[in-house]
């Protein structure tokens, strides 16, 4: 079973569905949860795993909408300035932030999951008056007044349909090699 976990890419400006070759195998989500790895040192976090889980958690926990604010917090841990962190730089900086926050070393995994998010959210709500709504899609779609939630709800429902094979996204390979096939 393949699943796209990121209709909201880390870059908030891009709301395209990921192409299938960027799909992530869902099976590991059950076994490898946040703060449950076997990493002894935060310097050697499993970046690939962290990226995958962060894509998922960004949506399910709702923090993807606050990416810029989180980015601001993590920048000083990245050694970079005034940039939007790449997914790998994000998780590496997050691991350092987790350490600075006093998480156990095994919890410094670069994954912004429920536990880390609880802490991060506190910090964000202290400094900003922002709303965070980590709701999962339910039976009824949010109204269009809740713009992001409306988009997310529908995107997730479509992804469900993709996961069950009722609609598919076009292969990016095809996109690259067959440019003028359609429009």
């Amino acid at each position: 079973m393949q699943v796209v976990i990121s209709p909201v890419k880390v870059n908030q400006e891009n709301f395209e569905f990921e192409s299938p070759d960027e799909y992530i195998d869902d099976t590991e989500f059950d076994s490898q949860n946040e703060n449950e790895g076997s990493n002894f040192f935060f310097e050697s976090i499993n970046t690939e795993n962290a990226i995958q889980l962060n894509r998922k958690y960004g949506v399910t926990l709702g923090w993807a909408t606050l990416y810029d604010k989180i980015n601001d917090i993590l920048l000083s841990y990245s050694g970079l300035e005034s940039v939007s962190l790449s997914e790998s730089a994000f998780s590496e900086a997050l691991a350092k932030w987790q350490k600075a926050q006093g998480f156990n070393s095994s919890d410094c995994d670069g994954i912004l999951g429920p536990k880390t998010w609880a802490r991060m959210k506190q910090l964000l709500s202290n400094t900003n008056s922002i709303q965070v709504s980590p709701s999962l899609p339910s039976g009824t779609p949010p109204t269009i007044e809740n713009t992001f939630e409306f988009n997310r709800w529908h995107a997730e429902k479509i992804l469900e349909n993709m996961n069950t094979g009722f609609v598919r996204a076009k292969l990016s390979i095809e996109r690259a090699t067959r440019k003028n096939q359609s429009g």
Partner: protein
Amino acid sequence: MLNPNNHIIQALPIIHHIAESAKKEDYKEIIIGSFIRGADKKGACTGHCAGRCIDLNISSRSFESVAALQMVVRILGYLTNLPDKYKKSMGFGMPLQGQFFGHQNLTKYKGVSTTLLKNEELRKLVNQLGYVFPDNDNHLHIQFNWLSKSASNYETEVVYEEGESYENS
């Protein structure tokens, strides 16, 4: 580019409806081509860029086939059951290929009479749902603007930008 934080992506509920309808019928041939793209060559953000268009393909790829015609008929059938709030006039870009316009020499991206469509069922559906124009091969293009309060302009004006069609497939 569209920011999902402050722009309703109008294509999403339409795709969702199509996907749910396909699921009910256990129909698995629909491929979502693209629905959000960058601005066109002139920098205008209309149609696909604004999230108001969808391109759909078929798993067997060619739109010459009867299967492709049947898929398009099926999808337009789904759209007749759209929730009322999304059910405003829609524009359909269909290929000049055999089952659709029968390779007639028509100008692309300009609205045409539905009588030019080869298939009667398709004609009826388009008449019911909106308007049609010839488009590039091997896909069904759907455009809409259900958020617009006055859909009248939209009904008569083809907003599809030719420049958009070459950026992606």
